[in-house]
């Protein structure tokens, strides 16, 4: 994995961006380089500062400190309307008193593009989001998904240097959300737009984006590709926020943590109580006392506390030395459910387990 310092200078470059509201730090020293044409997700729980970061990039909220540079030009002090960024609001924020076509044309009119050109580009943009025929409708006459697409067309038609999307799909139903996800990704790829996509939905972040920024309490926890985040989460927060993880406790001594009698290699420098994380579906489960243990796998024994059959998966909650470990097994049909109270052996590959310092 490349370290952050030798990342190439991005097209959008955010340097030590900070926002304070009184004593409260909404965004804390955010550093980020976004190469041209990439779609980057801001992922984090509610209130972690995603919207605030986006609004600072768009110039809607003044930054307390830090710089925002696009294509080498410093925009930190530039007013919103001169930043040339397309922002898609969570609430769409369409102009209620204008038709779809007028909404889309607005940005071009502000840029004093000539009439013929405006008509042409508006038509294209509306076709791009599959809204041809709805040009003269008012926003109130459109469905949520259609309004969403108008908002997208309105932001795209100005060919912004950067496209900012603030949870644009959160008001849509599941089916429409899937469609729009693909549509946004397609359009972004096709037009080669540099974009930031704010979401608190990890599936959205992992499936759509080139890179994901995981934020927590105003700070950047980890930046990486979806695979990096999932396979090598740098912090306990990332491990539990991206995908699901069992969060167990153990004690580390001399470079190894001991968990239910099994020694697990721990990162250097960790001593005392630590957190052990492992994803439920990366665990294997077999009836007690395996005769031939796979040497490539580590294992512990426990007792089944609960068995839940959920169709696609069979979930066991296993009591291992007083801690409950969830295990998910894909069902194949015909397996028998192990009764609660029965001893079982859990196993895993060493690379699937992560150890972090104890939570503060």
């Amino acid at each position: 994995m490349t370290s952050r310092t030798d990342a190439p200078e991005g097209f959008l470059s955010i340097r030590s961006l900070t926002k304070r509201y009184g004593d409260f730090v909404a965004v804390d020293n955010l550093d980020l380089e976004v190469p041209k044409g990439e779609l980057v997700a801001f992922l984090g729980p509610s209130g972690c500062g995603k919207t605030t970061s986006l609004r600072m990039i768009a110039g809607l909220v003044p930054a307390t400190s830090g710089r925002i540079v696009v294509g080498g030009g410093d925009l930190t002090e530039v007013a919103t309307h001169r930043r040339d960024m397309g922002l898609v609001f969570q609430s769409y924020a369409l102009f209620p008193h204008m038709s779809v076509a007028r909404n889309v044309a607005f940005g071009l009119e502000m840029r004093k593009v000539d009439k013929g050109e405006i008509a042409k580009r508006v038509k294209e943009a509306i076709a791009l989001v599959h809204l041809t025929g709805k040009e003269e409708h008012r926003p109130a006459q459109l469905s949520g998904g259609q309004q969403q697409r108008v908002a997208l067309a309105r932001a795209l038609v100005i060919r912004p240097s950067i496209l900012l999307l603030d949870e644009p799909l959160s008001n849509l139903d599941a089916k429409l959300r899937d469609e729009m996800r693909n549509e946004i990704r397609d359009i972004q790829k096709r037009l080669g737009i540099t974009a930031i996509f704010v979401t608190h939905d990890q599936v959205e972040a992992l499936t759509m984006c080139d890179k994901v920024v995981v934020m927590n309490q105003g700070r950047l926890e980890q930046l990486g590709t979806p695979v990096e985040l999932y396979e090598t989460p740098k912090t306990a927060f990332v491990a539990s926020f991206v995908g699901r993880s069992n969060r167990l406790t153990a004690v580390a001594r001399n470079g190894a943590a001991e968990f239910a009698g099994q020694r697990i290699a721990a990162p250097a420098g960790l001593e005392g109580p630590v957190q052990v994380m492992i994803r439920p579906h990366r665990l294997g489960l077999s009836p007690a006392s395996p005769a031939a243990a796979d040497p490539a796998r580590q294992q512990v024994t426990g007792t089944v506390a609960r068995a839940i059959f959920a169709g696609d998966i069979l979930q066991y909650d296993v009591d291992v030395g007083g801690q409950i470990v969830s295990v998910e097994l894909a069902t194949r049909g015909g397996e028998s459910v192990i009764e609660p109270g029965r001893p079982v052996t859990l196993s895993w590959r060493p690379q699937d387990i992560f150890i972090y310092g104890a939570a503060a």
Partner: protein
Amino acid sequence: MSAVAPAAAMPAPLPAAERSSGLPLVVLLLLPIALVNAFGFLAPVFNLLRMSFYESQATGAMVEVYTFATWASVLRDSFYAELILNSILVSLGITLMTLVCSYPIALYLHRSSGTWRTILLVLVISPLLTSAVVRTYGWVAILSENGLVNNALGAIGIAPLKLMFNKTGVVIGLTEILMPYMILALLAGFGRLDPRVEEAASTLGAPPWKVFRHIVVPLTMPGIALGSLLCFVLAVSSFITPKLLGGGRVFLLATEIYDQAIVTLNWPLAATLSILVLVIFGGALVLYTRALRAIM
């Protein structure tokens, strides 16, 4: 005198550029209204306070010396004591009448719905948008010697009643004039009146009038209090109707202020009486807040 509009609930973010030049812009935008407020409201009101301590002379001229003479004469003279008491009593009577006449309309409006309700609401509001002079004129047509009521009475052989140029006329006219305010205030306060609560009382065996007495009236008390405050305050200060329907024979604070200001040109006296009106307002407001606390 309706409730002040709610302020914006959300802090309003602004583009950075605008915020940095915020102060001078704010001042610039607020300057015109501040000027109107200062010259048309603050200065005149302050001046009015001062004026009540000036000395007036028989010629109508004023002397800019500070004296309690006007105040002393107003507070000592039994004519003014009676005037004040009269104004308060008449206004209380009007308020009560307005409440009694408005309550059925408000309750009816509260319980109706759809287009019919809108039409009725427009009918309630329309008089509010019509000049008090026009409506008072209508009352002259109804109450005067040759008016609707007396001609109707005459037709069935009853001697004409004296309905105008006395307190009766003023009370009838002002009651009607103030009804829209009362109805709107009552409606605003009827929000707490849930039909299910009334139904619950009925199922528990309460006859309709007991439901009204024990459920409806207590629940609508805040609206009643607000409407009453509004009407009392408007009655004390109304002038056109008492003047036209009272025909100079009904003496109230408001008409006296006008006469002193325009006819007698005794401005210090008019100013003093004005301040008394404001004092009565203050008293009504205090009573209202007390009443509201007792109800809630």
